[in-house]
């Protein structure tokens, strides 16, 4: 019995570890396209950017792979899957047979919809951090396109390092896919207080970076923004080429059932690349805790371990002194109730749907977050009264009637 895992990010490595811990005794191969030892990505836009000299934090130490009898193949770029022969082929002509194949291919940045001359600078890999960190230390002028987690994490780090930072987003508020309007506003004020500048409704038409130290962003309205470097941080999409070309069902992610099985019973998908059945719908989450949850769930599925899978999604972002922790999943039209004082150092926003708490967004408010994480890990969403009883709401929550105008 041989299990082959494509991708050695958090999902792939956690899965391999969990499968061995569950007693799997067959062959286990982890194919990693990168040359570095599998490393943790969250620090790339935070600590590793501030202190590039420190050794990158691996997902598991070097000794782990041999000890767990996991064959880690570095620099292994899988080019095709032959489902009939149950084989994967690598770019260098190597082929590898599998009994079970796990796709943990993660996400990728789509090609930007604007014109580009010169390199596209992003922050996704250790090599990207190795490139950007020394540039930031020269106190450059940087334009970050995109106001999601990664963009704002880089903006905060760049500001701390003395750079002149402008965040340009086509949206009207920060992290609009991830948090409520009141949370966006509170985070915006904190970044502005640190000197980060913002440009909203900024539709980018072209980005020119013809040589180091010269960069320009041209907006659709004709205005031009100048800097030393432009970083593109407009988000990622699922990496599905292999699955699609192999004829698996793909729709904004590799479609998997509640056992993480794709349309081929010998192939599974986990992490950022997978769109999993949750109740009546499919849901794809780009988050590390989700990758870990699915990795453990699949290990249990494959080894027949009895368990109930009740995912409790949560997310975090750390932007300088801003600690954002989010428990649960909200829909855009969920009501918002503020707990605490948003002008103060710490507060949370309760998102409520049909009288039940769907999600809790916390800014430097770990106490509320920790209660919310425990409550939302139950199978049923807590009703708002239970949230009050649990101590989640320590003061009367104030409804937000209309989103504040920026």
């Amino acid at each position, binding site marked *: 019995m041989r299990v082959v895992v494509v991708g050695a990010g*958090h999902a792939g490595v956690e899965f391999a570890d969990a499968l061995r811990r569950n007693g799997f005794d067959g062959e286990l191969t982890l194919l990693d396209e990168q040359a570095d030892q599998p490393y*943790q990505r*969250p*620090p790339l836009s*935070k*600590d590793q950017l501030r202190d590039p000299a420190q*050794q990158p*934090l*691996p997902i*598991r*130490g*070097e*000794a*782990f792979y041999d*000890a767990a009898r996991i064959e880690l193949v570095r620099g292994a770029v899988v080019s095709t899957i032959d489902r009939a022969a149950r084989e994967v082929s690598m770019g260098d002509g190597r082929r590898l047979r599998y009994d079970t194949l796990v796709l943990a291919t993660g996400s990728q940045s789509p090609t930007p919809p604007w014109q580009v001359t010169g390199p596209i600078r992003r922050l996704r890999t250790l090599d990207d951090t190795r490139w950007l960190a020394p540039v930031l230390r020269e106190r450059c002028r940087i334009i970050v396109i995109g106001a999601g987690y990664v963009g704002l994490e880089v903006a905060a780090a760049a500001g701390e390092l003395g750079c002149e930072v402008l965040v340009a987003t086509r949206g009207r508020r920060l992290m609009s896919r991830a948090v409520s309007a009141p949370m966006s506003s509170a985070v915006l004020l904190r970044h502005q207080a640190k000197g980060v500048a913002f440009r909203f409704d900024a539709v980018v038409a072209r980005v020119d970076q013809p040589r180091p130290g010269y960069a320009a962003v041209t907006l659709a309205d004709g205005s031009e923004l100048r800097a030393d470097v432009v970083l593109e941080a407009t988000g990622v999409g699922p990496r599905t080429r292999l699955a699609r070309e192999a004829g698996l069902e793909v729709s904004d992610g590799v479609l998997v059932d509640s056992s993480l099985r794709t349309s081929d019973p010998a192939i599974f998908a986990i992490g950022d690349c997978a769109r999993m059945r949750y109740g009546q719908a499919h849901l794809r989450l780009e988050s*590390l*805790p989700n990758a*870990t*949850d699915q990795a*453990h769930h699949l290990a249990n599925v494959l080894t027949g371990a009895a368990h109930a899978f009740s995912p409790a999604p949560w997310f*975090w972002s*750390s932007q300088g002194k801003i*600690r954002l*922790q989010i428990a649960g999943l909200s829909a855009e039209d969920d009501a918002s109730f503020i707990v605490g004082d948003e002008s103060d150092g710490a507060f949370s926003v309760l998102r409520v749907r049909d009288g039940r708490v769907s999600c809790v967004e916390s800014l430097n408010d*770990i*106490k509320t*977050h*920790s*209660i919310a*994480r*425990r409550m939302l890990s139950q199978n049923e969403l807590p009703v708002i009264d239970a949230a009050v009883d649990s101590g989640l709401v320590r003061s009367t929550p104030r409804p937000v009637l209309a989103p504040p105008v920026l």
Partner: protein
Amino acid sequence: MVKVTLVQADGSSAVVSVEPGQSLMRAAVLAGVPGIVAECGGQAMCATCHVYVREDHLDALPVMGDEEEEMLEVVASERRPGSRLSCQLVGLADDVVGDVPPSQI
């Protein structure tokens, strides 16, 4: 440099050397100690680098901050008196012995 002994539930143990300024989490992950997951990379966000420091070694630890105090409420294994997040254990005053909890997630 101090030495930290981390004992697993099965009785096996590893001795980890922790450099000055380095967290116990980082030293343990680099050394490949099983059961120290640390999925947030050391930000006191995820509570998956939980260790039980044995009682007679508590004096060697840095003071616990509010963030760590609150995050210990969401650890996967039960919180006990010696519970700490190893990412916050920087600047240990002496060698330490601790136990790795049965689960982190």
